[in-house]
């Protein structure tokens, strides 16, 4: 055996459980969800087999063939064929198949055999196959295919033992590289392969054709032309109501905790400047952002449940015509829906879109979808200005406004893509939409918990790094220079922050922004939540005793309704997230598209805020 660690690649159709297997094999926590196209990158992990061998495992985007029609599938092709610079082809290919849906996987397995590397077939999701009474003659299949075949259950303890043993024995005597006879298959070859796969299927599988009963029943309602759309809307609506209604008690508790902490520091025998730094800079600033953790967790809970259930692909089906009308590719829906959580994974997942222009359009509009970082800003302003009462007896008005803001983001994204595709590029409307609809699965508590935990730690890490460092900066700006002796105005009016804020005033005056908002917007370019923290710090220094929960009241007292609404409108569109811009640059491979995104969003934000403020003022809200 060679000295280098053998590499094993996991290859298979989308959604067959490759990443779940990868996680089980390597102990990683890569994202697993029940829709095709979750993994869009190559991920590498290590595994020590029961026999003590050290192996490198590679997880890859799912694909139906090595033909590679989209950027994510190109990654799979290049890894399998060893085309990546400095990397040999994998020493062993584990072709992963969904045992309940073998047909397309067998064709892929036949294609993979031609790559000239050793292949092994893993029949995954065996638990579901057994439950549905599907019987597969694995020995016969192995003989017919000429490759080892093994069963696996990626999501159960002990479910990969057989796979591990087979890998061990395969790696023990790896052959020298065979002749690669893979070539881009034409229709005739693909057809021949599928016919051969169908023949195998008839020999080795009993009872495979029936639809999953639960899925059939659920789809009768969820994919109903009218009821399906109504339910989709209702789900989104409930989601945003819940973000408000359920999070309240937890948020109040966190806010109270920070207030207590602030009071503790306030009473401590410390120099005034240090006291102000801890209390106004750190506790009021970072605290006012961390308060929103419960809302973020609730939002992610909904998204994760929908993803694990298998609803996402259905939502894409229901929305296809509406998205298509705006010039968006059918596969754009899931990336856009993931952007509700954060635009960064949303933009990454556009790799499943084959056409370059379609992909670019989706990337450009993804940041308009309301990401979770906007929640703190929206909640702060809504909480301060929108009365907490019910309309029509059962719908919270605050949640309704929140829903409206989400809707504004969606309408914005659809309009921009419409303008791009139909008016500027005049792109042919030929994008096909072809998507496998997976069977529904009951989400597993464990994977939900891991998903939520991952999300919560990312949020807290951001609060501890980006947001914290911005808060320090803001505190310095807002505290220096110190007021001269015998100053009559509040200390902060003499600070750098006030100077900067007032300098920009002429530009933002028509939007109704005051200098405090101006100052918050600049560091807010780093991350949207920073603006809330910055306001927390500025008003804390300004007013003396502001803690996280107080900014709402202060803001309500100092801003006009027009200003508040204009700031909301600004945040629907503004490109206030440096990481998103960086990802756009990386994924499009050009600075140009990053700047295009930045400036078009800035322009939209300015115009939207301007109109909002001026209209509000005309109605007496200025």
């Amino acid at each position, binding site marked *: 055996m060679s000295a280098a660690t053998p590499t094993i690649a996991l290859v298979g159709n989308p959604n067959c459980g490759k990443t779940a297997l990868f996680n089980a094999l390597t102990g990683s926590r890569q994202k697993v969800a029940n829709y095709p196209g979750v993994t869009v990158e190559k991920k590498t992990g290590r595994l020590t087999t029961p026999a003590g061998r050290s192996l490198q495992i590679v997880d890859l985007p799912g694909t139906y063939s090595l033909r590679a029609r989209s950027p994510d599938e190109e990654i799979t092709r290049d890894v399998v064929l060893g085309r990546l610079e400095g990397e040999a082809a994998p020493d062993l290919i584990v072709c992963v198949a969904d045992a309940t849906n*073998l047909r397309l996987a067998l064709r892929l397995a036949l294609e993979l055999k031609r790559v000239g590397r050793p292949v092994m077939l893993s029949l995954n999701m065996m638990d579901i196959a057994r439950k549905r009474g599907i019987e597969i003659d694995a020995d016969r299949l192995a003989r017919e295919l000429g490759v080892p075949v093994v069963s696996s259950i990626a999501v159960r303890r002990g479910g990969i033992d057989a796979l591990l043993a087979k890998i061990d024995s395969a790696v023990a005597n790896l052959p020298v590289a065979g002749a690669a006879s893979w070539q881009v298959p034409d229709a005739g070859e693909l*057809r021949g392969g599928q016919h051969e796969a169908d023949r195998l299927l008839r020999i080795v599988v009993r009872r495979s054709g029936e639809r999953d009963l639960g899925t059939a029943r659920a789809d009768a309602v969820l994919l109903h032309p009218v009821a399906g759309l109504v339910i989709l809307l209702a789900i989104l609506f409930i989601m945003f109501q819940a973000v408000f209604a359920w999070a309240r008690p937890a948020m109040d508790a966190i806010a109270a905790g920070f207030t207590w902490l602030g009071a503790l520091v306030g009473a401590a025998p410390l120099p005034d400047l240090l006291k102000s730094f801890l209390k106004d800079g750190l506790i009021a600033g970072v605290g006012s952002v961390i308060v929103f953790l419960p809302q973020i967790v609730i939002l992610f809970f909904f998204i994760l449940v929908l993803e694990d259930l298998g609803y996402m692909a259905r939502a894409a089906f229901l929305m296809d015509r509406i998205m298509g009308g705006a010039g968006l590719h059918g596969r754009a829906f899931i990336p856009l829906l993931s952007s509700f959580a954060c635009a960064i994974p949303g933009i990454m997942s556009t790799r499943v879109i084959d056409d370059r222009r379609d992909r670019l359009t989706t990337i450009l509009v993804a940041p308009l979808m309301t990401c979770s970082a906007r929640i703190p800003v929206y909640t702060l302003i809504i909480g301060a200005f929108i009365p907490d009462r019910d309309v029509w007896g059962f719908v919270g008005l605050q949640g309704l406004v929140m829903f409206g803001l989400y809707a504004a983001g969606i309408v914005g994204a659809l309009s921009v893509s419409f303008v791009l595709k139909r008016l500027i590029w005049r792109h042919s409307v030929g994008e096909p939409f072809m998507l*496998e609809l997976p069977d529904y699965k009951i989400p597993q508590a464990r994977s939900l918990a891991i998903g939520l935990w991952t999300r919560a730690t990312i949020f807290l890490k951001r609060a501890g790094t980006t947001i914290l460092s911005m808060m320090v900066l803001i505190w310095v700006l807002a505290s220096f220079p110190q007021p001269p002796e015998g100053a009559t105005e509040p200390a902060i009016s003499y600070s750098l922050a006030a100077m900067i804020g007032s300098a920009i005033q002429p530009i933002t005056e028509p939007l109704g922004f005051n200098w405090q908002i101006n100052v918050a917007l600049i560091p807010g370019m780093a991350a949207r939540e920073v603006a809330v923290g910055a306001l927390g710090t500025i008003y804390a220094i300004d007013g003396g005793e502001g803690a996280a929960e107080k900014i709402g009241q202060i803001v309500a007292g100092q801003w006009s309704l027009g200003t508040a609404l204009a700031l909301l409108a600004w945040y629907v569109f503004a490109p206030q997230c440096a990481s998103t811009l960086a990802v756009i640059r990386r994924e499009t491979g050009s600075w140009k598209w990053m700047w295009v995104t930045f400036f078009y969003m800035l322009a939209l934000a300015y115009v939207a805020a301007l109109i909002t403020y001026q209209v509000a003022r005309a109605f007496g809200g200025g």
Partner: protein
Amino acid sequence: MSSKPTIALGDARVGFRGRIEALAVEGAGIGLPGPELERRLIELGFVEGADVELLHQGLFGSDPIAVRVAHATIALRRREAMAILVSAEVPS
């Protein structure tokens, strides 16, 4: 193959059951070039002899459609489904 009467799957109604007789991509897809469309359809399992059932359709223009092909459910647009020629299952 047989000379059964065929219709395009893109013209079928919900509840239609049948079998794929041929793929006729010439001039079918306005979007993709014919040979590419053909390969994609085959990769998703639309080959001659496969059983199909039209399960669901969208609200606007009855588009897209969800089709059961042998063991999988695939969503696609009627325009692409025009390339799939199917014969109706003879009611027994």
